[in-house]
């Protein structure tokens, strides 16, 4: 059971995430969009959307800090376990609450504004359920497991397991021993990653960072010399 949950499912989720994104890029570039509903309503969106998205960016940053960077590195940098946890709980709590508040506003808006609701697909609804569950479970781990007393040091168990996935030697035993809240959050997170490329969440992979570096005006031409459009690969001709 533990092997299935912590040794097989993660790879399934990663496979679906990567494979799905590639598949979507190849076959559904036209569907790859934010499908913004701002045209219908912007009063609630103006509050909810930045709250949710910026909160989520913080949350993602927190996960990278917690899961990717080994405890030994932060220790060498002179950050004590207690100090780290305090920061994680405070920052993570704020980010989690902001994200959750944001998505609450957004879902309220989606349900009550008729035009927005009319543009909501079944796919969207499923995605919202998984996303909210992941957020709630995540916030629960932050608050329940870490907020009380000295907290649970997930950087000794969950994080090594997460990193071990990428060297193809999953430390299943580490993960099998963590508290239930962490297990639940991890499972929902895997589900979220598995459906990610098949929902509107795919727009996150199109974050337009390159906008900061390209020239303002874009010319495209039949001429490969001056055109900015890359040549189509051979199988696509």
């Amino acid at each position: 059971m533990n092997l299935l949950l912590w040794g097989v499912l993660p790879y399934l989720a990663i496979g679906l995430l990567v494979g799905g994104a590639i598949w979507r890029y190849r076959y559904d570039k036209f569907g790859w969009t934010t499908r913004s509903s701002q045209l219908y309503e912007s009063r609630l969106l103006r509050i909810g959307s930045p709250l949710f998205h910026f909160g989520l960016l913080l949350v993602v940053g927190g996960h990278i800090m917690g899961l990717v960077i080994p405890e030994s590195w932060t220790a060498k940098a002179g950050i004590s376990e207690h100090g780290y946890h305090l920061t994680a709980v405070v920052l993570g709590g704020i980010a989690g609450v902001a994200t959750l508040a944001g998505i609450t506003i957004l879902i309220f808006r989606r349900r009550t504004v008729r035009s927005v609701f009319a543009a909501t697909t079944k796919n969207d609804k499923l995605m919202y359920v998984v996303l909210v569950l992941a957020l709630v479970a995540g916030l629960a781990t932050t608050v329940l497991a870490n907020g009380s007393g000295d907290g649970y040091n997930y950087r000794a168990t969950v994080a090594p397991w997460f990193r071990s996935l990428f060297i193809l030697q999953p430390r299943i035993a580490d993960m099998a021993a963590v508290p239930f809240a962490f297990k639940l959050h991890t499972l929902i997170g895997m589900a979220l990653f598995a459906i990610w490329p098949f929902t509107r969440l795919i727009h996150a992979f199109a974050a337009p960072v390159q906008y900061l570096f390209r020239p303002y005006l874009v010319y495209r031409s039949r001429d490969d010399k001056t055109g900015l459009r890359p040549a189509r690969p051979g199988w696509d001709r």
Partner: protein
Amino acid sequence: MRIMAQMAMVMNLDKCIGCHTCSVTCKQVWTNRTGMEYVWFNNVESRPGQGYPRRYEDQEKWQGGWKRTRNGGLKLKAGGRFKKLLTIFSNPTLPSLEDYYEPWTYDYRTLTDAPAGDDVPVAQPVSQITGRPMAVTRGANWDDALGGPVNQDPMLEKLNEQVKLEYEEAFLFYLPRLCNHCLNPSCVASCPSGAMYKRAEDGIVLVDQDQCRGWRMCVTGCPYKKVYFNHSTGKAEKCTFCYPRIEVGLPTVCSETCVGRLRYLGLLLYDADRVTAAASVADEQDLYQAQLDVILDPNDDVIAAAALNAGIPQDWLDAARKSPVYQLVKEYQVALPLHPEYRTLPMVWYIPPLSPMVNALAQTGHDGEAQGNLFGAIGSLRIPVEYLASLFSAGDPAPVTWSLQTLAAMRAYMSKKNLGEAADSDPAMDRLYRLLALAKYEERYVIPAAHTEQAHQLEEAVCSVAGYEGGEAAFGSDSGRPVPVSIESFHLTKERQTRDQP
């Protein structure tokens, strides 16, 4: 010098009768799809009036176009790159559906399904957004023919002059608008994904539907609000200048179907290296002249040689020499750009209307066609010239006056000539008269076809507007590659129809 060709349009506003045929035919061809119900790539506005979307010219609110920075550079009025990315989750200056209008259809079924009774059944308006019955409160041409709150015209507000709206003294003209396919397009510059581009061959500005990710910054970027958000596909769409038609040498649908034959299509050659400098001149009122200076004379041997050198084909150069647009814009300087102060260097040009003045003069008992009377009238009818200048020359009355005086002089000259009173024949005037009054199809639309050897690549650069009909497809949107829009050229069709292998 980097010479590029630009397909451009001139509209002679004197001839526009406000029939909306251009808008309707355009809509039938391009925007009669789910998600695009509220969109008019071409619309005809009554001026003075609010326009569509309402008060789009109020750039203090909508932040469209460019602004000049203190050190003389250009910056998007809505903010730089960082600000764009920071406001990507909620664009603070995106017009809502309210600012356009909520599209509707009618519940026609009740007309046929209603049971027999004393009352005549009525087809209720039904929103195409929510599917619910709705009250129709506005549309794309809601203030047609001064039918709306004229005093809310943003350009009129700036004039600080009480415009008398009494029927006799009211002035009105129609302003057909489409994408200006600017030389310095702020929509392209606003696109975070880099999905919008200007075609190097003919300057047509397009949205790559495969690359657009729906960040909707282009809608804010365009000061003319001529990029629209398809709320069904979540992608930006805009006037394509009917590029599948242009590529095979046909005029755009709006031009083809124009009842008043007021549209002209032709090439302009310009120096792409000077575009940014021209768009960033300090004084707004110098922008029109700067824009003219960017346009090159195809009859100049040096320019012609450089154009050929830059890869512009000979037949395109020939077309540029015959271009009615070049003559009206640069030679006679009677056609002016719409809102040059937005610093986008728009490529749809307008000949300001003279008719109301001729009529006003005739009503006062003067000879409306006499040159002296007309010249005097142009100066004394302050409101129209100032108002026209606020539209076409950033408030500088000189270009508008020049244009109107040229038209007036032509009228007087032709009037005299027809009465046998003309002293000398004036070939330039004859040519202008022919261009404005008589020009046939081939003279109004001088469009060189895209080269067959280039046709394949042009199809690849296609900006597809595949028919998307909503519904619950995979991911709640369309899946699979869209079928690109493409009209075969004559030679391609012939080749396909006559080849041995299918």
